[in-house]
């Protein structure tokens, strides 16, 4: 029946001219690949069953994953239940199969081919077919979804879906990509859609707002109590349940997300056992709030887990278009005069760590030999003296030709006050005066984009790929509205960045990346500050974890009990016997040893 419909569709002239897909024949020379050799990361001891109770601070505004009001945190759980074509192995970062069993790359570097798993079915029982992807692209480009950003994204990045047969298709992009990026740009986050469910007309936004969309993942919403709670039910006969990389995952039968609008109140619920876990990453929670009986008596365990994901790039960029910072020795002097260590060990309670380079957490693409320059008054003095700033004025600040060694630090977040004032006070010891320019975040970002800063105290979010070109390439130096805050313009670095961008071979690319980082370190205009390479949670002792309790790219499993795409876990399970035992123990007053696990399996450096 399905095939017949497809055949009819393919035959119709309108469809043949669709801008979203076309019927094609599979090239003969194609080399199918798969991966069943990377290690599994789930625990065979995992038991199925039980209910995980968690909370959300607000009820979602819609069950759509696209369109108005859909961009909330709740979408994560919906997207998590759309199985991706392929995943990146959370530890090795190599491609592993998902909804596709095999994949292949076109010689044009624009096309990626997929074979859909023969057993893959929608939650409504219909098989997943190539045309569902064609419809997926059509939908993302449709005006009906009222999502201009997505319309444009799918227009610019995607060219067409090539349909070979029901279970074989290809995605063709407009740009050339290396193999990693073909998966990253085209396959990740691009979901099939069911044309039986979506009617793309002007009423779409309203019609499907509270409708449960068919999905291909392990859970489906089973109950919705508007404003109060959402319940996800595990599919008893999920098509992928026994596949290598899905086995022993998604173990709990039910996930109940209750709406609790206040963190502090939610924490009280957690302490009563009404929530199974709670995120404790913030120092105040981990050190001050997560104390007391339930922790001491071993009913609730604490876990501090170090992950190895790419790190956001927090730091200070010295603007080399400012005459003062043209001198490398001055920059080196500043590098050694910033007492980041003291900020970390005091106001940040020793919880944050020193960031060492501009791109940490990129596996082999990170140069581990690079270490941030430590606070060192002697070295600072050496470099500054060499640059002619040897003398100190009556206020202890260095002077040269009647000018004081003073620089303005621009930042955009008042909550960082306590960090920068420590830097300022400590820099005085090195004879450097930092004046602080606190602007509101938008104005501070604008100041930096316009290059009107002397030192930019800021940060960049982590991405799958570092942004060398935008931040350090000479093309973006000396002009406003670019991210090159240091105005780095170094011919050698430019050459490497260009080569890195053009390189498709992973190993060569990584080598270039390491060289780029070294060069950025040598130029010394970027002072790396801090990172938080971990998450911390508390959980009742009946929640069980594999060993180690997460993967290299795991995110906080309490905040993201289901996580979309590559970092998608579902590794935990609930031990019903342990739950009974614990509840009985709490009544009788029996105690267990207190447990605080610090797991550093994936800690880098």
């Amino acid at each position, binding site marked *: 029946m399905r095939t017949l419909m497809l055949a009819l569709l393919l035959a119709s002239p309108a469809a043949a001219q669709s801008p979203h897909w076309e019927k094609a024949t599979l090239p003969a020379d194609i080399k199918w690949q798969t991966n069943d050799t990377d290690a599994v990361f789930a625990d065979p001891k995992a038991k199925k069953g039980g209910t995980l109770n968690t909370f959300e601070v607000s009820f979602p505004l819609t069950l759509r994953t696209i369109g108005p009001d859909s961009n909330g945190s709740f979408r994560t759980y919906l997207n998590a239940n759309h199985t991706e074509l392929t995943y990146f192995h959370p530890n090795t970062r190599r491609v592993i199969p998902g909804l596709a069993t095999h994949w292949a790359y076109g010689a044009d570097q624009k096309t990626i081919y997929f074979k859909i798993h023969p057993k893959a079915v929608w939650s409504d029982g219909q098989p997943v077919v190539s045309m569902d992807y064609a419809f997926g692209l059509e939908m993302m480009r449709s005006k009906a979804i009222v999502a201009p950003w997505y319309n444009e994204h799918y227009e610019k990045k995607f060219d067409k879906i090539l349909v070979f047969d029901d279970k074989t298709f290809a995605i063709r992009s407009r740009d050339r990509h290396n193999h990693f990026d073909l998966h990253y740009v085209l396959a990740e986050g691009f979901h099939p859609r069911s044309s039986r469910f979506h009617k793309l007309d002007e009423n779409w936004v309203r019609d499907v707002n509270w409708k449960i969309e068919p999905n291909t993942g392990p859970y489906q919403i089973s109950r919705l109590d508007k404003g109060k709670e959402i319940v996800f039910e595990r599919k008893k006969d999920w098509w992928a349940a026994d596949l290598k990389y899905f086995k022993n995952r998604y173990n709990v039968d039910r996930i109940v997300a209750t709406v609790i609008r206040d963190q502090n109140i939610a924490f009280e619920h957690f302490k009563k056992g009404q929530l199974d876990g709670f995120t404790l990453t913030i120092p105040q929670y981990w050190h001050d709030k997560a104390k007391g009986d339930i922790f001491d008596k071993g009913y609730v365990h604490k876990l501090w887990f170090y992950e190895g994901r790419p790190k956001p790039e927090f730091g200070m960029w010295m603007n080399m278009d400012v005459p003062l910072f043209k001198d490398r020795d001055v920059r080196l002097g500043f590098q050694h005069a910033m007492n980041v260590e003291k900020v970390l060990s005091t*106001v940040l309670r020793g919880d944050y760590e020193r960031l060492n380079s501009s791109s940490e957490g990129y596996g082999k693409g990170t140069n581990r030999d690079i270490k941030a320059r430590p606070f060192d008054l002697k070295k600072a003095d050496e470099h500054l003296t060499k640059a002619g700033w040897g003398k*100190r004025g009556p206020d202890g600040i260095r002077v040269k030709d009647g000018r004081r060694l003073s620089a303005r630090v621009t930042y955009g977040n008042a909550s960082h006050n*306590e960090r*920068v004032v420590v830097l300022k006070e400590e820099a*005085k010891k090195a004879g450097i005066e930092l004046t602080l320019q606190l602007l509101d975040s938008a104005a501070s970002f604008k100041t930096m984009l316009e290059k009107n800063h002397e030192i930019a105290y800021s940060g960049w979010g982590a991405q799958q790929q570092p942004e060398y070109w935008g931040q350090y390439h000479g093309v973006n130096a000396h002009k406003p509205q670019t991210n090159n805050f240091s105005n780095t313009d170094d011919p050698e670095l430019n050459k490497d960045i260009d080569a890195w961008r053009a390189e498709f071979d992973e190993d060569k690319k990584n080598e270039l990346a390491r060289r780029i980082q070294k060069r950025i370190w040598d130029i010394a205009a970027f002072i790396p500050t801090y990172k938080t390479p971990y998450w911390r949670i508390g959980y009742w002792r009946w929640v069980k974890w594999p060993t180690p309790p997460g993967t290299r790219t795991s995110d906080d499993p309490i905040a993201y009990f289901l996580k979309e795409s590559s970092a998608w876990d579902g590794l935990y399970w609930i031990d019903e016997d342990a739950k009974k035992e614990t509840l009985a123990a709490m009544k009788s007053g029996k105690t267990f040893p207190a447990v605080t696990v610090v797991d550093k399996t994936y800690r880098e450096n």
Partner: protein
Amino acid sequence: MILPRLDPLTKKKFARFARIRRGWWSAVILTAAIVMSFFAELFVSNRALVVRHEGRWSFPAYGAIRPGTEFGQDYQYETNYRRLKKTFEEAGRGDFVLLPPVPYNAYENDLPEGVYPPTAPDFSSRHFLGTDTSGRDVLARLIYGFRTAIIFSLLLLLCNYVVGISIGCAMGYYGGAFDMFFQRLIEIWSNVPFLYVIIIVASIMVPNFFSLIFIMMFFGWMGMTWYMRTATYKQKIREYVQAARAAGAHDSYIIFRHILPNTISVIVTFIPFSVSGGIVALTSLDYLGFGLPPPTPSWGELLRQGTNRLDSIWMAASVVASMIALLTMVTFVGEAVREAFDPRRHTVYE
């Protein structure tokens, strides 16, 4: 400038003011606090008052910083006198350091190992009101913040009054088209939403002490004009002004010599309220983050830290208590001044 000699009537007013005990004592305490705050370095500072080192005496409280090397230490930056005191005591060679009662300044972060700010009030470390979220002494920030606020407020008052009184007087004295023009101008000007302007300005440039005074004066001078205009109108038609004019006195002589002294009660009555207004304005701007740039010690900034960290109640409590005390005293003074200068008690209509 020669101050106009006080006439008996004014003397009587001051005597009456002194008799209003609440206001009088508030004025005394406030004046003492202001004067003392000008010498805050002697009470609250990380610099020692007196150091004797190898028979040499030094007084580092004021003047250029003294590097550690001057007292036989091994560092180039400013001497840490608290540590120096310990070192000297341990050495026991008769060298000594005399520290102020609160041995911290408003900027330095006192962050001992293993203790995380904010820390609670503690007499042994001489943090009498605890420390804030970056380990700075709350009392020191409070006192230096008070100094900043009061100087700010007085300067602002001076600027506002100079402009406001001149324009107000001129409006009243010249009247006619001049008066009409400024009336309309002020009406329009006072409808500019002042807080928004400050927020916009502060988000594109960091206001410093003087630019903030300038901005606030720019939108604050209008208040006094109306009162001065009315007062001047009233005086202008009095016989003594007419007489002076008939005698050929020129305008500025009449305004400064005759009219101003006779409107002084209007001005004096407003001063205390303008002072408290200035302090409140600065504190609220700092609280919102649009006032003086960090790390300037300021009550508003401390209040913001305090309200974010209500579990560390000493921060919010210190500011709130100081604020209440200060504003209450200023109000008492204001009340007393208004009563003492009440024209109904002194004016005799002929």
